[in-house]
């Protein structure tokens, strides 16, 4: 800011205030904090369904993700099939997902792969609940950062009954369930 050298008391005060503000900004910048993003901790999530309804975006920026290494690749999948499903096919009467966002592909006897179509997923967490009750919990919700607008105060976080939302470093950005590297070696 260019300021003509003046002798007025007010001018002096103004410059002083500007310098103080700049100093404050400098101090803050030096605190070394980095950008953060909102993310939900699947260990705390209770699948209440608010991620689907409370996001400022429509459909929500929260989507179901699938940690394949944890998945059991089961035929009878609690996240894919209705609890009382009479058959294990893709019929609407058997599928749990209300928008049909999970696809089931045969891998080899007796394993099936389940894939989430994020374009369709609304983040309601119904499959997450099914997978957690009956399965390994490989399906869970995450905030997708290509969609999230990064509100100052996340509208879902505010309404999360389990306080599962927190700000985390933008470098990690996700709270994923993963196996540790040690068991990755397969025989």
């Amino acid at each position, binding site marked *: *800011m260019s300021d003509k050298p003046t002798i007025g008391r*007010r*001018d002096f005060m*103004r410059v002083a205030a*500007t310098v103080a*503000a700049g100093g*404050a*900004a400098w101090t*803050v*910048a030096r605190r070394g*904090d980095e*950008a*953060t*993003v909102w993310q939900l901790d699947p*260990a705390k999530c*209770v699948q*209440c369904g608010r991620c689907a309804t409370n996001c*400022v*975006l*429509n459909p929500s920026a929260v989507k179901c*993700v699938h*940690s394949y*290494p944890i*998945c059991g*690749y089961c035929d009878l999948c609690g996240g894919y099939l209705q609890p009382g499903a009479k058959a294990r096919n893709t019929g609407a009467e058997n599928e749990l997902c209300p928008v049909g966002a999970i696809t089931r592909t045969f*891998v*080899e006897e007796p*394993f099936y*792969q389940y*894939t989430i179509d*994020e374009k369709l997923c609304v983040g309601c967490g119904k499959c997450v609940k099914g997978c957690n009750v009956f399965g390994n919990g490989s399906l869970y919700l*995450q905030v*997708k*950062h*290509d969609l999230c607008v*990064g*509100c*100052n*105060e996340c509208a879902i976080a*505010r*309404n*999360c*009954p*389990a*306080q599962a939302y*927190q*700000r*985390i*470093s*933008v470098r990690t*950005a*996700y709270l*994923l369930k*993963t*196996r*540790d590297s*040690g*068991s990755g070696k*397969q*025989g």
Partner: protein
Amino acid sequence: MKLKHLAAAALLIFAWAHETQAEFRFPMPEFESGYKHPEMNTPLPARIPAAVDITVLFVALGATAWSVVKLRSRSMVFLIAVFSLVYFGFYRKGCVCPVGSLQNIVNALIDRNFAVPLVVMMFFLLPLVFALYFGRVFCAAVCPLGAIQEMCAVCPVQVPRPVETTLGLLTYAYLGLTVLSLVTGTGFLICRYDPFIGFFRQGASFNMSLVGGGLLLIGVFVARPYCRFLCPFGVLLRWVSLFSRWHASITPAECIQCRLCELSCPYGAIVVPTPSDRPVDRRTGAKRLGLLLLLAPVIIGITAWTGMTAHEMVARLHPTVRLAERVAAEERGLFAESTIDSDAFRAGKQAPAELYAEANAIEHRFKHACAWFGGFMGLVLCGKLIRLSVIRKSSDYEADRGACLSCARCFAYCPVEAGEAPVEDPHARS
């Protein structure tokens, strides 16, 4: 919502990751077909570097100041407003805005561990610094909330002064509530009740969209209702702008008292020359003022006490308090159904007694905070009354430095402006 998560985030993530190692170590099935599982798609946010935002903000503020003070061009100001609306509003989705950054700053003052990124700090400080030199140029054309309302203010009418003054009290109440909710850990009220951000990102709750739409509709006639009667950041800008160095002036040179600009300002920000015939003599006025000054502590005391008394109602803003109340009522059998929140609470480890204790502690915090808030409102009330009874003499038509949004509408009404070819710096004469 707890806002203190940030500091603990690193620790939490560490602890979590640690736990997961034990939980999810179970090996995958062995596939004979050589199946390889797809990788998870975890895109990182495509964020524009903070420097870009800060630079754009600085340039926009500078351009507005230049347009208002030097160029004296309403069209230019309007164009910058359009740009701001597009960039800060629709492109950057209205977040972080300087209005909201106020909360981050206040929260950082309360909670040492709450980090404020540089971009947020700059968004807070730059408009204030500019206000200190050029008046509220930020409001004029840079603020996306102001810009969207400016677009809608097509045929503004003047609000009667008394109403304008009284409604203006709301901004202080909003500011007070914002700080109160931060002090009590309730959350970011400004963000929660931002009426226009829903338009920027093409998605908001139905109710907020209605409120936003309604405000814009009103704004067609009562220009910028949010800025004038609600915006809490506006309060700070108003205070700072009072001391501005090169504030916009209605006329580029000497005021010729033609009164043409009198009705040009939709914001009631033009100070008219004080008539010489006082209805009350100086002594009566002084007596009234003295009485008011004596009464001020009493008024502040009453409002503080009122705030304290009303704290239980305000405490319901806090989700924990609401939950505790709900859980207690359910325990006593007042509700047959449980809510998602109470279900989640019961699924957790906390005992009701602990929740009640927590809620009681929060309520206690509210008690203090509400008393302060009440006192603050009393102070504002007294300040307004005192300001109304102190007559500051002005002889020309000039901008009220606090209320003026530097929108540059009045310039066109000044015949001096029209008559002079090269515009002289009106402040050149000291």
